[in-house]
C-alpha cells in the first residue's frame, strides 16, 4: 500500500507531462470498418504472475488458461457472447442430432475431420480419450478432476491411489469414455448433467498427445533448458515457441492450424507482478495493454490522453461479504438483513473501487441466465430500514449487540474496504466493527475452517451457468460453502436443478433457489467486477468477454490485429 501511495503522488503529477512529451494518441481498441492489419503484427501483454503448470489436465488458475487457450482448442468453445460453439467437434451434440441420448446419460461427439495437431498429424477421438482418462489419474492430482466426477468411473479411478497397479488399470479401463472410431467419441455419465456440454468446453479436457506424455513424462509441458517446448504440441492457433520461466512466453502462429489462421505473427507475455510497474511499462510502450493500479481509475478517466485508451467490460464475477451463519451473532437472519441495508454499495464502488464495477444485490451476475435485476432490492442501501431491522433483530440502536468483527486479507484494496465497512456501520447503524487483518493464505485457512466471522468473498464463473453458481456455494456442506448456510428448501431445489434436462424448467428452479438465498442473506451482495484496462489504439479487434483468463481479451487473441 505504502509503495503505491508514494508512486501515485509522484506519478499523477508527471503522467500528464509525459504524455505531452510523447504526443498523445487517440483511437479505439475495437475494430471498425476500414480497420485492417498494417505494420508489425506483434503484441506484448502482461501475464501478471508465473503459472504453476500449463498442462491442460492439471491447470486451474486464470493465468494458466491464458497460456493454454492460445495453444489448444477443445471439442467445444464459447463465442464472444459466451454461447457454445463447436471447435474440434463437428457440431454441438443435441438430442435431435443423436449426440445426446434420450436419457441424457450418453454423449456421442463427432469430430471435425479437418482438425490437426500443430505438427500436422490428425486429431482423433483417441486423443480425447487419453486426455479425459488422464484427468482422473490418481497420481496426477488434477485440480479440476472433481468437475468431471459425473463421468462413469472417473471418481473411482481418481480415488484408487491405494489400490494395486492391476486394479488401477482395470478402473482406468472402466472409465466411461471411448473412441467409437477415429472421429467419434462416446462419453457416458452416471446421471444426466444438463451443463455437461459447458464442461466439454473447458481446458481440463482439451486433447493431449499421448506420445508426448510418453516421451517426456510429466515434463511434456515444461520448457527445455533453452526455453523451447519440444513436447508441448497443441491444436490451437498458436504455438508456444519459447518459455523462459519467470520472464516471458513467446507464441508464434501454428502454420498447420486447421481453423482460421491468426493475423498476429508474435505474442509475447511478460511477467510484471507489480501493478505500478506494469502501468509504467505501458506508458513507456513496453506493453500494449495494462491495468491501472487500484485507486487510480478516476484520475485515468479524467485524463484526456488516457481516457480514450480505456477498455471496460462486465465480468462474470460477484463479490459479497459472507457471514459465518453458524455462530452468533450472524446466525440471526434479521441482523444480516439489517447490515445488508446499512452498506452503501454505490459509495463503495465510487470511493474504494474508483468507480469501476456495478452494484450487486443478488448473486448471479448480469450477462448470465437467471440474472434478475429486481432481486435483492429489499435489502438495497436504506439506513432507515437498516435501523428498523436492527431493532427487530433484538438490538435496538445496537444495544446488547456483541462485538462484531471483519476478517480481511491485508493486501490490495482490502484494508480500504474494511475501513469503509467500519465507517458505514458506525454511521448508519451506530455499531462498532472490529477489523482483523490477515495474510491471504492465513485468511483462506481461517475461512475454510469456518473460524471467521465476516469476510469478503468473490466468485468467478468456471462456466456461465447457474449450476456453477448456486449448489457449490449455498448447498448444505458444499465444498465452497464457507458461510455454513443450510436451507433444506434450497437443497431440494438444487437436487432438482442439477438433473433437470428441460432448460426452461431448469432455469426456473435455479431462479427460485437464488430467491431463497437472497432472502436469507448469508452474504451481503456488494458488486459485480468490471474489467478496466488501458489499451494502445493500434490494437484492433481484441474482444473482452466475461470469462477471460488473466489478460482481458485473451480468449480471442486469434482475432486480434495491429494497425500502426
Amino acid at each position, binding site marked *: 500500500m505504502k*509503495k503505491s501511495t*508514494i508512486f501515485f503522488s*509522484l*506519478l499523477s503529477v*508527471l*503522467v500528464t*507531462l*509525459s504524455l505531452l512529451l*510523447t504526443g498523445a494518441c487517440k483511437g479505439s481498441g475495437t475494430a471498425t470498418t476500414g480497420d485492417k492489419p498494417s505494420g508489425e503484427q506483434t503484441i506484448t501483454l502482461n501475464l501478471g*504472475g508465473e*503459472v*504453476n*503448470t*500449463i498442462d491442460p489436465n492439471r491447470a486451474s488458475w486464470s493465468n494458466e488458461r491464458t497460456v493454454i487457450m492460445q495453444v489448444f482448442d477443445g471439442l467445444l468453445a464459447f463465442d464472444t457472447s459466451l454461447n457454445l460453439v463447436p471447435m474440434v467437434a463437428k457440431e454441438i451434440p443435441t438430442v435431435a442430432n443423436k449426440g445426446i441420448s434420450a436419457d441424457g446419460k450418453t454423449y456421442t461427439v463427432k469430430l471435425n475431420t479437418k482438425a490437426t495437431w500443430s505438427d500436422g498429424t490428425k486429431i482423433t477421438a483417441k486423443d480425447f480419450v487419453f486426455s479425459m482418462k488422464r484427468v482422473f489419474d*490418481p*497420481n*496426477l*492430482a488434477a*485440480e479440476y*478432476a*472433481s468437475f468431471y466426477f459425473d463421468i462413469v468411473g472417473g*471418481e473411482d479411478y*481418481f*480415488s484408487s*491411489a491405494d489400490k494395486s497397479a492391476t486394479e488401477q488399470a482395470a478402473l482406468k479401463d472402466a472409465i466411461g469414455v471411448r473412441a467409437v472410431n477415429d472421429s467419434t467419441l462416446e462419453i457416458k455419465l452416471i446421471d444426466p448433467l444438463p451443463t455437461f456440454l459447458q464442461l466439454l468446453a473447458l481446458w481440463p479436457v482439451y486433447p493431449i498427445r499421448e506420445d508426448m506424455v510418453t516421451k517426456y513424462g*510429466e515434463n511434456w*509441458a*515444461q520448457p527445455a533448458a533453452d526455453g523451447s517446448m519440444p513436447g508441448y504440441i497443441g491444436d490451437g492457433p498458436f504455438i508456444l515457441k519459447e518459455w523462459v*520461466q*519467470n*520472464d*516471458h512466453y513467446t507464441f508464434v502462429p501454428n502454420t498447420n492450424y486447421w481453423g482460421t489462421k491468426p493475423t498476429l505473427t508474435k505474442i509475447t507475455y*511478460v*511477467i*510484471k*507482478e*507489480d501493478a*505500478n*510497474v506494469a502501468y*509504467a*511499462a505501458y*506508458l*513507456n*510502450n*513496453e506493453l500494449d495493454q495494462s491495468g491501472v493500479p487500484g485507486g487510480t481509475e478516476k484520475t485515468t478517466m479524467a485524463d484526456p490522453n488516457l481516457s480514450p485508451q480505456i477498455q471496460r467490460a462486465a465480468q462474470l464475477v460477484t463479490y459479497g461479504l459472507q457471514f459465518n451463519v453458524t455462530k452468533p451473532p450472524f446466525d440471526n437472519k434479521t441482523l444480516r438483513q439489517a447490515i445488508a441495508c446499512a452498506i452503501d454499495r454505490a459509495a463503495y464502488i465510487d470511493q474504494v473501487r474508483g468507480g469501476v464495477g456495478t452494484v450487486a444485490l443478488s448473486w448471479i451476475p448480469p450477462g448470465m441466465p437467471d440474472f434478475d435485476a429486481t432481486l435483492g432490492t429489499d435489502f438495497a442501501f436504506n439506513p432507515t430500514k437498516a435501523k428498523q431491522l436492527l431493532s427487530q433483530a433484538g438490538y435496538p440502536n445496537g444495544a446488547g449487540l456483541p462485538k462484531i468483527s471483519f476478517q480481511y486479507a491485508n493486501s490490495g484494496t482490502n484494508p480500504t474496504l474494511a475501513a469503509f465497512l467500519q465507517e458505514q456501520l458506525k454511521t448508519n447503524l451506530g455499531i462498532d466493527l472490529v477489523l482483523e487483518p490477515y*495474510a*491471504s*493464505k*492465513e*485468511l*483462506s*485457512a481461517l*475461512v*475454510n475452517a469456518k473460524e471467521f466471522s465476516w469476510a469478503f*468473498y*468473490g*466468485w468467478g464463473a468456471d462456466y456461465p451457468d447457474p449450476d456453477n453458481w448456486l449448489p457449490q456455494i449455498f448447498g448444505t456442506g458444499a*465444498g*465452497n460453502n*464457507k458461510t455454513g448456510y443450510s436451507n433444506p428448501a434450497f437443497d431440494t431445489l438444487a437436487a432438482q436443478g442439477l438433473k433437470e434436462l428441460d432448460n426452461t424448467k431448469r432455469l426456473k428452479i435455479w431462479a427460485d433457489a437464488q430467491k431463497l438465498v437472497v432472502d436469507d442473506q448469508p452474504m451481503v451482495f456488494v458488486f459485480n467486477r468490471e474489467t478496466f484496462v488501458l489499451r494502445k489504439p493500434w490494437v484492433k479487434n481484441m474482444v473482452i468477454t466475461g470469462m477471460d483468463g488473466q489478460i482481458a481479451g485473451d480468449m480471442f487473441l486469434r482475432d486480434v490485429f495491429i494497425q500502426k
Partner: protein
Amino acid sequence: MYRFILRRFLWLLLVLFVVLLITFILMHLVPGGPWDREKTLAPKVIEALNRRYGLDKPLWQQFTNYIGGVLHGDLGVSYSYSDRNVTDILIRGLPKTATLGALAFLISQLIGIPLGVAAALKQNSPTDYASVLFSTVFASIPGFVLGILMMILFSVLLHWLPTSGWGTPQQLIMPVICLAALPAAQIARITRASTLEVMRLDYVRTARSKGLREDVVRVRHIFRNSLIPVVTIAGPELANLITGSFIIENLFAIPGVGRIFLNGIASRDYPLIMGGVLFYAFAIAIMNLIVDVLYAAIDPRIRYD
C-alpha cells in the same frame, strides 16, 4: 588457518541443520497451507495433492525425508513451479541475482570508498559536505522508492530505459543503481569515519615525522588500516547483494532467486521455502567465513592458529 576453516565449516553444517529445522517448524505453524484457496478444492483433490507431494505423512517423517533428500543433493520439487526441481529453480535464478548483486557491490565500493576517503582527507570542506549529503540522502531513501523515481524519470518521462525485465544491459542499469545506493552511502560514511580516526593515530604521526612522503603515508598507513571496518561490513553486504533483494527483483521483474523465494512463501510452496532458506543461510555463512579470512590478510594483529 586450515584448521580454523575446517572447524568453521563443521559448525556451518550444524547451523544449516538448525536453520532448516526451525524453518520447517515455523512453516508448518503458520496458518494456511499450499492448497488453501478462496475457491476451495474438492476434498478428494486435496487428498490426492497431499499424497502426490508426501504431505499425507506425519510431520517428523516429512522432515527426515527432506533432510535425507538434501544429503543426496535433492531439494525436492516445487508445488508452485510445475513440479520443477527446487535445485534447478534456484540454480537458474542464481546467475541473474548474482550478476545484479556483484555489479551493485562493485559500484557501491567504487563510489563509497573514494567518497569516504576524499571526505576525510578534506574534512569540513565542500567535498566533505557533498559526501555527507550523498550518504545521508541515499541511506534514507528506500530502494523501491528510488526505483520508482528512476522508472518515472528514465522510462515514463524520458523513454531512455525499459522499466523492467531481464536480458539487455539497459535493463540492468536501474536495479543495479537501486541496489548499490544504500551500501555506497553506508560505505562512504564508514570509510570517512574510520579514515578520520586512523589519521589521528600515533603511528601516522610517526610515519610523517620519519619524513615519509604524504602519498605513501596516505596509501600505506592510513588507507590500509582504515579499510578494516569497511571489510567487516563488505562481507555481509556482498552476501546480501548476491543473494538478492526481494523487493528490487520483484519491482524490476527480474527472474532471480529473491523473487522466486518470495513467491514461494506467498504460495506456501514448502520445498521452495526450505530450499531458499538453505541457500540464503549457506551464502551468508560462507561470506562471513571469507571476511574472517580476509581480516587476517589485512590486519597484521589478527592470526588464526
